[in-house]
Each structure stands twice: as C-alpha cells, then as structure tokens.
C-alpha cells in the first residue's frame, strides 16, 4: 500500500535500536493542534535481557486490540475489495467460492474506457463532485478563516456565544442537517419563502437538474451546444455537459456542506491565530498598518501551515460526500447529484454489480491520493519560490 504514504511523515520502518528513535519533526496533529511542546524519552540505558523481553511482550499485548481491529476491519476489507474489483462476483455466496473468477481489469475498463452507461455515470459523478470540490473548499475555508479572525479578537462581547453558534452545526449529525436542509430548500420552504418575499419565484431546488453555468449561458443567448463541444467528450460525457456547472439541486447540497463544516475549520484556525506572537501585530500597529494590512501581511503568512491542513482536509472530505446524497437526492435529479462515493454504493448494493462498485471505490481512492499529492507539490513549490 505504498500509495497510502504520500504524506512523507512515516518513520523509517523496522527500527532495531530500542531507545531514542528519531522523531519526525513537526507532525501535524489530527485536528491541527500543535504537538506538545516538550517530549521526553527514557534515557538510553542497557536493559537486562529479561526486562527487555518483558517490555516487548507488554508492548505487543497492549497494542494487540488496535492491531487486530485494524487488520480485520481495515487491511483485510481493502484486500478483499481489491479482489472483488477484479472478479465477476455477483453478491451471491462468498466472493472466495469456486465459481467466482478473476476477470482482470474488465470492471475498470468498463468504467474508464468502454463507452456505455457505467462509464457515463462515472463521468457524470466525477463532474458533479469536481464542481462541488471547486466551490465548497474555497468558500468554506474563507468563511472559516473570516469567522476565526473575528472571533479571536481580544475585546469582543459575546465571544463564547458566537463561537458556539458557529460551531454547533459541525457536531450535528448528517441526518439531522439533511432534514433541516430538505425543509429549508423545499419547494415551499424557507429560502423560497424569502425569495417570494422579494416578489420573485424560487426554483424547485432538489428537483432542478439545470446546470448553473448552462443557465448563465442561456441567459446570454447560448441555448444549444456548439458542435465542437457536443460532439466530443471525456468519460462518456460531452464537453458541453462537462461545462454544465453544478445543478441547482447540487447548489443546495453545497450550501449544506459549507454551513456544516465551516465551524469545524474555524476551530482549527483559532489555535493557530492565538499562536501568532503578539509583538508581530503590535509592531505592525506601530508601523501604522490598518487592520486589513495586518491581516494580509501578518496573520495570513503566519497561518500558512494551518491553511494547508484545512485545504487538505477539505479536499479529502469533499470528495467523500455520501450521506447527504443518500439522504437528500439519491443522485437525482437526472444524475446531477451523483457522486463517485454514492455511485459506488448504488452500483454494488443497488445493482449488485459488486466488481464495478468496488472498482469505483478504488478509482475514488486514487483521485483523492493524486489530488492530495498535487496540492502538496503546488504549495511546497510556492513556498520555495
């Protein structure tokens, strides 16, 4: 699983030296908290043989439950799904029974290179998710940063209240939030009631498959696809349809995502903002910088590592959107809210095409890994420049 180690933060494996291992510097904490400041290690001394054996036994014993769980419910499942993705298993009996055969890359080629419904659905799901990522990640990051900067002000009445208010949606379950948004964006729901208040007429949000970019183009008079765009395409979707933009239904789901996650990311930004040395901003004030200049020249550069963490987490999270799709739209209308994660579920559990469903999961995995590496490269290049 070498693909799993793009982070470059793995310790050298198989350290024989019992004490004083090299510690990788500057590991990001799971939620962006800076690691503990002081780390202590036992002094290097020679352990007598018996004590060393005892310590080794205790260590493996204490790690055993976690290791067992990880092997049985993480490593084994992935290996099994890898087998299913290159087999013709139809969901009946065990995938290891004698009448299940390897079919090579057939499931993958049906998705990636053979024209047909599976390829087209995968293409559509990737398009939908791509727009989702491109719009949700920057907006939620900017919103989270903005809220964090304001809420971190020293003299602010009701700071605790605002912080709680912004964070609360993050801890609410996806089911409750989906219900809330079905109501808010319902055809006779909250948003449309507001729109009606302005005398306009709101769309039937979750039933509207029209792409936003297509709607803009048709507003400009472009209603039919130029033949150059309609005749050619990628992954079974014409270039014209790639340019559809997110559907109206997807826009509502994006609003849900931004509303739910910005609080989480605000909470990741806050400690980083507090960690900025006070004399930096004081020096800027003395130099006569206004608050925007201070933000732009002092705060933002200092927040770079956190920004990278938030963008990475956002990217990984947005490619995995599943719950909301399952609960709100099931990929409808007209397949415009289909995402690879949901398509993988639908193909396996719905159509019993287990090989293809597992293959989609691995394709999604590959997309996430590749994009994370690309993002890492872009940011580190900029840092070096």
């Amino acid at each position, binding site marked *: 699983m070498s693909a799993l*180690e793009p982070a470059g933060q793995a310790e050298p494996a198989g350290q024989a030296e019992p004490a004083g291992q090299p510690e990788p510097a500057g590991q990001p904490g799971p939620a962006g908290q800076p690691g*503990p400041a002081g780390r202590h290690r036992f002094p290097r001394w020679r352990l007598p043989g018996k004590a060393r054996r005892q310590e080794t036994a205790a260590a493996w014993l204490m790690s055993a439950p976690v290791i067992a769980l990880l092997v049985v419910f993480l490593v084994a499942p992935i290996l099994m799904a890898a087998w299913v993705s290159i087999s013709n298993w139809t969901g009946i009996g065990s995938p290891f029974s004698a009448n299940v055969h390897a079919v090579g890359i057939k499931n993958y080629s049906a998705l990636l290179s053979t024209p047909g419904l599976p390829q087209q659905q995968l293409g559509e799901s990737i398009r939908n998710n791509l727009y989702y990522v491109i719009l949700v990640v920057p907006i939620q990051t900017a919103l989270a940063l903005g809220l964090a900067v304001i809420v971190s002000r020293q003299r602010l009445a009701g700071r605790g209240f605002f912080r709680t208010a912004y964070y609360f949606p993050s801890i609410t*379950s996806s089911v409750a939030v989906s219900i*809330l948004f079905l109501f808010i964006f319902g055809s006779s729901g909250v948003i449309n009631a507001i729109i009606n208040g302005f005398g306009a007429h709101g769309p039937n949000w979750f039933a509207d498959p029209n792409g936003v970019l297509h709607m803009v183009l048709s507003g400009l008079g472009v209603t039919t696809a130029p033949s150059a765009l309609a005749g050619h395409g990628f992954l079974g979707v014409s270039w014209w349809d790639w340019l559809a933009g997110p559907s109206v239904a997807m826009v509502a789901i994006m609003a849900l995502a931004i509303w739910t996650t910005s609080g989480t990311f605000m909470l990741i930004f806050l400690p980083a903002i507090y960690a900025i040395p006070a004399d930096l901003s004081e020096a800027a004030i003395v130099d006569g910088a206004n608050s925007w200049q201070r933000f732009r020249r002092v705060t933002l550069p200092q927040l770079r590592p956190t920004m990278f963490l938030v963008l990475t987490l956002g990217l990984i999270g947005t490619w995995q959107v599943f719950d909301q799709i399952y609960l709100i739209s099931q990929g409808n209308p007209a397949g415009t809210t289909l995402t690879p994660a949901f398509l993988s579920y639908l193909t396996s559990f719905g159509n019993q095409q287990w090989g293809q469903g597992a293959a989609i999961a691995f394709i999604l995995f590959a997309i996430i890994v590749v994009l994370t590496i690309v993002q890492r490269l872009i940011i580190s290049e900029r840092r070096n420049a």
Partner: protein
Amino acid sequence: MRRRRILGRVLLYLALLFFAVLYIYPFLLDIGTAFKTETDAAAHPLNPFPQHWVLSAFRELEQEDFLRWLANSVIVTVFVTLGRVLFDSMAGYALARLRFRGRGGLFAAILAIMAVPGVVLLIPTFLVLKQLNLFNTYPGMILPLMTDAAGVFIMRQFFLSVHPSIEEAAKIDGAGIFRTFWSVVLPMARPQLMTLTILSFQGSWNNFSTILVAHESPSLDTLTTGVGRLVSGELGAGSQYPLQLAAALAMTIPVAIVFFIFQKYILRTGEGAIKE
C-alpha cells in the same frame, strides 16, 4: 478617527450577528416546526412559532419505533466509545514509551492507515462483515466503528509529553508496566481521555454510512439509519416536515447536551483556560 472606529465596531457586530442568525435560526425553525401541524409548517416556514402547539409529530415518531432506534444508538455508542478509549490509550502508551522491535514500523503503519478515506471503506466493510458472519449483528455495527487510528495518535502524542521521572518513581516502588500505565500515567491523561471520549461519542452517535452497510433488519436501526429511512423512504415523498424535524430535533438533543457540558474540552483553542 474615533467615529470611524465606532462605525467599524458596529459593522463588525452586524456581521457577527448576521452569521449567528445564519447558523442558529435553522435550529430555531427546527424546534418550532416540530410542534406544528403539517399545514402550519407548509404555510409559514419562516415562523419559528407554531400557531397551535401540537405534539402529533412526536406521537407519530414514537410509533415509528423511535425508542428502539434510541436504544440501539446508545448500545453502539457506549461500546464504541469504551473500546476506543481503552484500546487507543493502551496502544498509544506502548508506542510512546515501551521499547520494542518494530515500533517504528507499527507507528508508520498506523499513520498510513489514518490516510485511508472512510467512504472508500463502505463496500470493503460490508464484504468482511458478510465473510465473518457479523453482518446484521451488534458486533458488526460496533467493531468497524471501534477501529480507529487517530485516537492512538492523540494518546501517543500525550504520553510522549509526560516526564519519565514519574514512571521511574513508580518503577522504583515496584510497580510493573501495566500497573504503572493503569494507575500512574493514565490518570494524568484525563483531558486527552475526555477529548477522545467526546470524539468517539460524536463519531459513533452521528455515524450513518458504516451503520447503513453493516445491517439490514429494521430492528437494528440506530437513530441515524432509522430517521434516515423516514426521509429517503416512502414517508419522505409526503414531505412531512413536522415529523422529520421532530426526529432531527430528538436525535440532536443528546449531542447538544454533551456539547454544552464539555464545551471547554471541545472548544479548546489554545488561548488559555482562564480567560473564558
């Protein structure tokens, strides 16, 4: 200059209030609409106050087996949380403090596993549960959620920060490795254990997708999958807003209670605990 300052301050608070409304008003609407009649809910979506307060949504919810879902959610959450807290801190201690061959490799493997996106695991988890005859059982819903690498990481980071002299003192007093861990070092990790407890409570209480692929019989539904059925199933078509919003409200209350009690552990942001 002074007037501009005041103006800036007013604008700041207006922005803060605007966002606070944006984040809180939906919940107020949720609470109000849960006590409305269906016609009232459809006619006045923006008004958080019912014209007549009715409990019909909650009565209906009870008929939908809500209490069984609640019990299942409690069972799953309690076992997942106990398992994670115990196993993660044991492994975290071993990885931070005990000297053994393969420690570096084990830690690297755990870091690599943390990078596997959860949603990719849905089909694989189902396959393994089927193979092990755990599909559609409580252990089948609990064990995959108990599998956790991030918690091991959190605990390891904490144990690395504990000064070794404390353990040496325990050793001199004749305590063995397990005793030192259990009665000396672990009690020091209370804040971290709290964090881990809250994380796994929230993670398992709110989990939808893993529970979804781990069972099929309605009697094993938790709050998330049970209420999810209300939305995406045949009832969803009728858009019974009061019923759905009552369900959303009821399942959010326990999370809200935990949140408000343990706020200081959740909203720990490094500005020092004294200022709040």
